[in-house]
């Protein structure tokens, strides 16, 4: 064998091992999806903190030959935090540390709106059963309707790990698309007159109430529904750190450093769970459709309940705030503020919408707990 043959053979081997030779239609589609998501996140500002890590994870895992998810690869180990259900509760500590439950404590009735918006979860669950998913898979898919990424992931890891990638992508995509999906539903189900209703200013909430709140919620919810205890407990733990002055240093870490670190790890883990062979299936399409359906129904039932409260209180409640009952915090509340101001520029519904919005977080965690207690 002369030098030329060796050289040609080496080049041939190199070419055969390169990613280009292994590219197939599935990989190309997934790379395009990743690029579109990156574009939406970076150029259009759709939830960049979540979508950039997820989209980049999708991109990485769909570059053939990378082996990042194979045993021994980086994401094989990092994904254990997601597969074992560790990251979502840790995210909840950060969410709790960033959330002010004051508007909810000031107006506890807004919890009803948070409950009403969870109906979408159970309707989508029935829809998924009708399509032919197993009850466990249907339960995991339904949770997308809560518009709560960590809860969806947590439930999927416990009930349907095989659908995790599709469920996570659907949940986070719809969370990012809250400003696009919700307004038409809100307008369709409310009258112009009701959308213009100005609500009374909320009462001030004392710091003692804010400190007692997370403790009470943790005890009562966990005793009632132990399977919801992990998520609700971590959420309330984070919130307690925020409210107690002497733990403000921990709250700062939870809401900044910890939250950012876990978001990166969770985002990349979710992204890398969407390899072309697992993601490009008819099931994924079904999950995306059901997720959207659940989200629309959740928004709708929240607004309908808002209408009921509006009529029962003699037009003191603006029904739009019901849409914030889906838990996408704080996007859903911001959408309520925006739609309300389009009708009446002097109307400020943001704080009123934050009540149902944070109630939605608790509500979706409870709904997930119900599903887990029945099907795990």
């Amino acid at each position, binding site marked *: 064998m002369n030098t030329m043959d060796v050289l040609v053979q080496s080049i041939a081997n190199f070419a055969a091992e390169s990613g280009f030779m292994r590219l197939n239609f599935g990989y190309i589609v997934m790379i395009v999806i990743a690029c579109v998501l990156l574009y939406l996140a970076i150029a259009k500002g759709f939830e960049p903190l979540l979508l950039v890590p997820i989209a980049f994870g999708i991109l990485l895992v769909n570059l053939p030959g990378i082996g990042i998810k194979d045993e021994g690869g980086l994401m094989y180990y990092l994904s254990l935090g997601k597969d074992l259900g560790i990251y979502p509760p840790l995210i909840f500590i950060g969410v709790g540390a960033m959330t002010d439950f004051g508007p909810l404590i000031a107006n506890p009735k807004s919890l009803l709106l948070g409950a009403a918006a969870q109906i979408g979860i159970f309707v989508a669950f029935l829809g998924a059963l009708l399509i032919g998913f197993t009850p466990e898979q249907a339960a995991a898919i339904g949770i997308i309707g809560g518009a709560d990424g960590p809860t969806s992931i947590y439930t999927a890891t416990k009930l349907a790990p095989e659908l995790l990638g599709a469920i996570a992508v659907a949940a986070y995509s719809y969370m990012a698309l809250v400003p696009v999906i919700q307004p038409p539903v809100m307008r369709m189900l409310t009258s112009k007159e009701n959308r213009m209703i100005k609500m009374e200013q909320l009462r001030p909430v004392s710091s003692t109430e804010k400190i007692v709140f997370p403790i009470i919620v943790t005890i009562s919810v966990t005793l009632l529904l132990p399977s919801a205890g992990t998520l609700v407990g971590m959420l309330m733990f984070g919130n307690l750190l925020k409210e107690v002055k002497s733990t403000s240093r921990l709250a700062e870490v939870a809401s900044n450093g910890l939250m950012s670190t876990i978001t990166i790890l969770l985002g990349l883990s979710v992204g890398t769970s969407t390899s072309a062979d697992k993601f490009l299936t008819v099931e994924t399409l079904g999950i995306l459709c059901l997720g959207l359906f659940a989200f629309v129904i959740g928004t709708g039932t929240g607004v309908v309940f808002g209408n009921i409260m509006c009529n029962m209180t003699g037009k003191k409640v603006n029904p739009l705030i019901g849409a914030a009952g889906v838990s996408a915090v704080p996007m859903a509340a911001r959408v309520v503020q925006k739609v309300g101001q389009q009708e009446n520029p002097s109307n400020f519904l943001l704080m009123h919408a934050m009540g149902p919005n944070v109630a939605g977080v608790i509500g979706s965690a409870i709904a997930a707990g*119900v599903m887990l207690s029945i099907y795990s």
Partner: protein
Amino acid sequence: MSNFMAGFSTFLIGILMVFIALLLLIVLIQCVGKVIGNMEQQKTVATPVTPVTPVMEPKKVVEEPVVVVDDCEIVAVIASVIALSLGTTTDKLQVKSLRRIR
């Protein structure tokens, strides 16, 4: 179909449980709010109030200088702050009306 019927019972139980849990929270929040409100009220009542005998001191009559506020100056300040936040200059903004709310 049996899956769907079993699922329907999950549907009912699920919605019921979510509402029960959140109704329970409403009751608890209201009770805690009342208890804490009462405790804080009692604290303020229990704080001994030392009677203060008003001591009349001869008041010095100091004539405070009357500050004449120039509305145009305020308009200029507001406009420049808005311009700064919009990343533009004041000459590109037009203030059409300004109303003082008392």
